[in-house]
Structure formats: structure tokens, C-alpha cells
């Protein structure tokens, strides 16, 4: 029993990120409304960010900022005391990319609605085949 529990604790973060990613991907492919698709896209991207942040986590480690007390007395910085800063850095970039895509996709949705008065994909397809 304790083996199973420790396995779950060790891995559930990765499992749940996969589930979250599947939800996002499903929303992106199967949903009919364009804005819902955009939401699915964003969930998909945040799931990836969750994955990266999970990689960077270390147990019993602090946030990646040196306190002034450490720097003042020339204490040697131990790597195990701080979480991995690299993944955080990468994910800052990824968040920025995702918000840029989100904003632009919303603008596109507004533009499409202006033209076709609908955001449902099947209705759009019907309108297109009529023309």
C-alpha cells in the first residue's frame, strides 16, 4: 500500500498534466464554437507549462531568489536549496506566447463574427458552401 502511495505521490503531477492536456486537445478538436476552441487551446498550453514547472520543482527547496542575508556574508549558494530557475524562465516565454496567440485569436473571432454573424463551426461551413 505504501508503495502505491509513494508511486502516486511521485508521479501524479505528471499524470494529471497529461489529463489536462488531453482535455485541452479534445476541446480544441471537438468543440464546435470557435471561442471554446480557443479556450481549449489555452488549457492545452497551460498544461504544458504545468509540465515544465513540475520538472523544475525540488522537494525542500526554496523559491529562486537569494535572500540578502546569504549574499552579505558570502555564504556559498547550494544548488539543492533553490528550485530550478531555468524552467521558470522558459515558461515565462511560453506564457507570453500563449497570451499573444490568445489575444490575436480573440481579435480574429471578432472579425469573423462581424462578417458571418456566427462563431459556430457548422454554421460557418454552411455559410461558406452557400457562397
Amino acid at each position: 500500500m505504501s508503495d502505491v502511495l509513494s508511486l502516486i505521490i511521485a508521479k501524479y503531477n505528471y499524470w494529471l498534466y497529461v489529463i489536462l492536456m488531453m482535455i485541452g486537445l479534445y476541446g480544441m478538436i471537438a468543440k464546435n464554437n470557435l471561442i471554446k476552441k480557443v479556450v481549449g487551446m489555452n488549457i492545452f498550453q497551460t498544461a504544458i507549462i504545468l509540465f515544465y514547472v513540475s520538472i523544475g520543482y525540488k522537494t525542500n527547496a526554496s523559491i529562486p531568489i537569494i535572500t540578502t542575508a546569504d549574499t552579505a556574508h558570502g555564504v556559498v549558494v547550494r544548488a539543492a536549496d533553490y528550485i530550478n530557475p531555468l524552467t521558470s524562465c522558459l515558461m515565462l516565454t511560453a506564457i507570453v506566447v500563449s497570451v499573444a496567440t490568445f489575444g490575436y485569436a480573440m481579435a480574429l473571432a471578432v472579425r469573423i463574427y462581424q462578417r458571418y454573424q456566427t462563431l459556430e463551426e457548422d454554421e460557418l461551413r454552411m455559410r461558406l458552401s452557400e457562397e
Partner: protein
Amino acid sequence: MHWPIDIVVLTFVIFCAIAALSVKDLLATAILFGAYSFLMCLLWTIMGAVDVAFTEASVGAGVSTVFFVAAIFRTSRRTKD
């Protein structure tokens, strides 16, 4: 040991994600999506990635929701799925 908090928040995150995708009112989706982002930000704070969490709080729960509501204001709340 953060894992009990972590697992509770993760479960909430997944509920929010499913709810945001299945609600039939887009304004509700916007709010649920904001909640999702905020819970995600909480999760990352627990894991110590404060910068990422800060960004997500200001972007995901803040500006994204505003863009979302603005887009709904200009399109429609109605959706079939």
C-alpha cells in the same frame, strides 16, 4: 510536504477546465477560465515558481479574461456546446 495541497488544487484545476469547456454560456466560460488560471497560479506558487505564477496571475487571470469578455461583448454569449 506540499503534496496534499497540491493534489487538492490539481483536482480543482481539472474540474475548472472541464467546466469551462462544457458550460453553454460563454460568459460563464470566461469566469471559469479565470478561476482555472488563478488555481493554476496557486499551484505554481506551491511549487516555488513564483515568477511564472506572478505572470499567470497578471496575464491568465487578469488580462486574458478582459480580452475574453471584450470579445464576447462584441460577439455573442450563445453557444451550442
